[in-house]
């Protein structure tokens, strides 16, 4: 898995960018994108889930990002949560999957693997 932080030279250009736009842009750059917190144990669980499946997600640790707070709020709105954002939030193929419970549910009901294959993150 790759840990990314948005390159600095983008910072000035994007400083007025809407955090939501930023989130969506980052999400569409890789097949599997996970927005997480470095201290969060549920985020650790989702990372281990993908590793266990042989998927290498791109992880953005929002607590290490200067604009992490805004992005967290944007993510909370996307996911539809009132209050603190339920990290981790997962995007596959640029599309929002959701928080941990959506990821687990889709894995159990068999829709996660086809989604990963479609996004090119998983080969049989």
């Amino acid at each position: 898995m790759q840990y990314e932080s948005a390159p600095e030279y983008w910072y000035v250009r994007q400083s007025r960018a809407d955090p939501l736009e930023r989130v969506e842009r980052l999400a569409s750059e890789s097949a599997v994108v996970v927005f997480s917190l470095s201290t969060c144990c549920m985020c650790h669980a989702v990372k281990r889930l993908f590793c266990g499946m042989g998927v290498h997600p791109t992880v953005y640790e929002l607590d290490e990002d200067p604009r992490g707070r805004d992005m967290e709020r944007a993510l909370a709105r996307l996911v539809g949560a009132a209050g603190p954002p339920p990290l981790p939030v997962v995007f596959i193929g640029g599309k929002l999957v959701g928080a941990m419970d959506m990821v687990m549910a889709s894995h159990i009901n068999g829709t996660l693997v086809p989604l990963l294959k479609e996004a090119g993150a998983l080969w049989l």
Partner: protein
Amino acid sequence: MFTMMQGEDVESWMANHRVGVTGFPDSAPLNQLLVYGIQDSNPSATDIFDQQEVACFDELEESLLQEVSGLRSDGDRQSFFSSKPSRLDILPSPWPMRFEKIQRGNSQSAGSTDSCLAKTIGPKLESEPLVSRYTSSEQSTDQQQHKVMANNASMAGEATNHQPRHQSKRSIADSDTRKDGKLLDAKTFRRLAQNREAAKKSRLRKKAYVQQLESSRVRLQQLELDLQRARSQGISFGGCDAVKGISSGASTFDMEHARWLDENNKHLSDLRAGLQAHLLERNLGLIVDRCILHYDKLFGLKAVAAKADVFHLLTGMWSSPVERRFMWIGGFRPSELLQIIMPHMDPLREHQLMAICNLQQSSQQAEEALSQGLEQLHQSLAEMVATGFIGEGSNVGNYMGNMAMALDKLENVESFVLQADRMRQETLHQMRRILTIRQAARFFLTIGEYYSCLRALSSLWASRPQESFINNTVSELQDIHQLQQHQLSSF
């Protein structure tokens, strides 16, 4: 004897006639009953009133509902009541149309025997003996008991107006139901067949009920043992948990869980009966859906309990000792359950086998992920607490800060339990999607019986006497073996 004029106000009558109760012999044929209930305003009487049960005889009530006329007071047998009629629990009509009599004989009243419970409407009843006995004691005014008043006027004229169910049954029996086939017409034949069906159904129901009773009895024994153990453990540990006792969220969940188990047994017997009776797919499907909804209810209960007392859920004290052994984050491990149940699920089509295989694999991966996440939680929690008081020692501020962080961390435990439960719920739903209705019925039945066996094993284990352990265990294991064979053969 009492007479009451039509239209006379009951209260005034009551004031005028204060007499004692005379009892009825049990065997007296009562063609008609009029029962008055008097509710005393005395608080102790009201308490008694509340405590006493009302038994409704459905047949009587239905038949009584058909009666319309007023009361004729020319009964042969009448009893009287005396008490302080400060409040009459009857409608303010000229003649009471509906009375409720609630009484239970108890040791208080001298010489009273058993209860007499009836709910009647109107005076003109033609019903079979429904109310059996009355208290025959003289009720003194001190005793705040309820009295029975029965008017036993014969109502021959009303006979045709009113058909109790058992009378109609008798009429069927009287009619031409000769089974030699000569006098059977289509209608009678159909009726006979329906009777047979009804009899068969009631036999099945009885069997299911008996099974449910037995499982409840086993569970009750196990609960009592658990309670004993919990008490003794509480005393021996004497830690802060024991001092505070079990939290209210925990005890609520224990109660709800027990109730859930009882209802689950009902669903299991429904499933069993449905499979044996070879119901239509549609009807069996309804039973299966009810079963799944019931499991959803359990996960709802657990979600509430996780918010209230997550550590109680994690310890598993709400389930039996053997079940606890297999517990994973507050419940069953989905991949393990699939592994256990699958061998009993043949025959399966190939696409079903593949789907179940995938399900097992995804469950394993998800379980692994959650376990590792929880492991990391434990580690960071331990570090926080340790650095809080070991490193800085006398630095109270740091200590409190670390404690606050640890508290935040602990909140995550709840989310892990919730995720694990969601995983379990989704696994059950996915199995329902993969399997046919019949297979799903067998699946849920097997799960239920597997856990019943685990619970039975727990109670057997708890109740084994140490000396004659081997002898008893052998015989009990034989019993379990027979039970299992019987149950497996019924598939």
